């Protein structure tokens, strides 16, 4: 319906010299992931163990780490904690386990996102693209997230102005806080705790329930259909993730 308004930097082309480290003890999985990543035009490094992954990360400084949770020896969670001590590259976790508690623990430990096996390769490609783009832009926009344009909706975080069809849209301070925290790191899955801490800047007892009501109210204002959200995506049992509008790919679909 609406004319495609593509962001200035095309979301589909990652940095040409980006290197992605793929860590999995299963060689066929590494090969499959390499396949998906090569099509994105990135260089791929492979590691079969956690120790190997840490050594490679230190030596080559990858732009992104795709990390399997169930590694023999030093496991995914330990690798995540170690990496977070000295490496800023986003960490995308692959997990064959379905426990939400485990995912939350990993994200709280410093991972940026997770995918549950078996995942669709298109989903992996989209996530990797989003993380590489965010990693490249990190530091470039210290004043806050770049303006958000989604059809009739525009959000200017610096001026703190939101409009729909040109008319001003009222967001409460907490709704601004949530949207800003999510949009500042597109593609990153924020746990309910992380999001609550970022917005309220203090711990709170029943954060999840409190947050859910605010997110639902925010969606009613910024989403085209609140019960079919496309910008603020729920990660079931874990938290929320901001997906930048993909006007170009929508028009092509």
């Amino acid at each position, binding site marked *: 319906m609406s004319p495609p308004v593509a962001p200035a930097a095309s979301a589909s082309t990652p940095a040409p010299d980006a290197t992605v480290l793929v860590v999995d003890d299963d060689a066929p999985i590494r090969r499959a992931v390499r396949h998906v990543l090569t099509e994105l035009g990135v260089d791929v490094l492979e590691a079969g163990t956690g120790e190997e992954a840490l050594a490679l990360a230190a030596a080559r400084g990858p732009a992104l780490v795709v990390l399997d949770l169930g590694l023999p020896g030093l496991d995914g969670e330990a690798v995540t904690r170690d990496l977070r001590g000295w490496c800023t590259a986003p960490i995308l976790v692959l997990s064959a386990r379905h426990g939400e508690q485990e995912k939350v623990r990993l994200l709280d430990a410093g991972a940026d996102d997770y995918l549950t096996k078996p995942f669709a390769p298109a989903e992996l490609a989209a996530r990797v693209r989003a993380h590489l783009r965010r990693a490249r832009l990190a530091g470039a926009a210290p004043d806050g997230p770049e303006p958000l344009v989604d059809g009739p909706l525009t959000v200017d975080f610096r001026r703190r102005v939101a409009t729909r069809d040109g008319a001003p849209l009222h967001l409460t301070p907490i709704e601004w806080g949530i949207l800003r925290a999510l949009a500042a790191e597109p593609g990153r899955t924020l746990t309910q705790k992380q999001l609550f801490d970022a917005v309220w800047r203090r711990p709170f007892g029943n954060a999840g329930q409190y947050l859910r009501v605010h997110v639902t109210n925010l969606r009613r204002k910024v989403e085209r*259909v609140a019960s079919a959200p496309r910008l603020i995506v729920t990660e079931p049992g874990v938290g929320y993730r901001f997906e930048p509008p993909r006007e170009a790919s929508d028009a092509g679909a």
Partner: protein
Amino acid sequence: MTGGGLAAWRPTPAARWAGWVAALVALAGVLAGRREQLDQVHVVLPFLLLVLLGGATGGRALGLSLAGAAVLLLNYVFQPPYDTLVVHKPLDTLVLVSFLATAGVATQLLEVARARAVAARRHALEVERLAAEREGLLVEAEHAHALREADRMKDAVLAAVSHDLRTPLTTITALAHAAAARGDPAGPVIAEQAGRLSRMVADLLDLSRARAGSLPVAVEVNLAEDVVGAALRQTAGVLGERPVVVDVPEDGPPLAGRFDFVATLRVLGNLLENAHKYSPAGAPVAVGAAREGAALAFTVADRGAGVPAGERARIFAPFYRAAQAGGGPGDVGGAGLGLAVARALAEAQGGTLDVAERAGGGSVFTLRLAAADAEGDVPDDADDADDADPAPSAALSAGLAPGGSGHTAA
């Protein structure tokens, strides 16, 4: 009827008594002819025998009656002066009294013995019955134990298999997509079948966990809008071009319930896939949420062939598949686990899942969970004043979404 009674003739108690008394009188008659030669003892002993036989077969009353009659006969017929009820010799009185006493005691003993025999027989039967019952219970308990053990084993195996299947499925899926991207016609088919297998694996795992009671369920206050949105997003790939009509109120306080988000998402996802599978091409699937008293009711409705009343309980059994599914326009395959899993997940969080006929054709599945009041349950924290932000309850009542018109998602 009236003439046929003879064949089934059985002696009534009165007839039996008359028979015994007649026998006694006959015996007395036979002996009376030679009473001059007989000693009283020769008469008393046959009489006593007859009294005891009567008492043994006819009971105490008959025995005592015969004893009385025997005493009268003894005195009247056999004790001089004959044919009178007068006793001359004191010894004759002793004979009469001891006869009566002997007959009475013997009859009483017979009665006691008979009662004991009856009780013993009853006890024997009871013991026999209890023994049989115990045996049955033992067999049953052993059987139940074996079943439980088998169930536990099966669940453990299922969980391990489900987990281990995911890794190769990931590789197959990725390589199939790569093949499809290269233009290999086998690629999309392999990818689709791998997807089907993945869903079956997930269903098997959930079902096995639910059966083992090891399904992690975290019931908290969640919002209907949130879970419906997540379900639509999760099933978007399977539903493809299928139109979906969403009916969740988007103004006023959000509909809230006490439920496990992930489990409810799985239920709605399975119901949406099911509705898609059994609907003719192009027919929209409807998903909605509404408050029903103390319950929060989610509905997923289709325009399929519907479920006959007799089948409604059976469709929730594992591995049940309706005949119409095969080759239907939206057939996504499956092992017939979707609805079994959905019901198990609904019940694991204290809810219910039912199916009913839909007005105008098709079926409507209703998932009922405990409703909650989002406004009342959110703490009204005064500390938020420094954020100059209204408390959530206030935000709720003020949260009027501009242009909340679109209720249809493709």
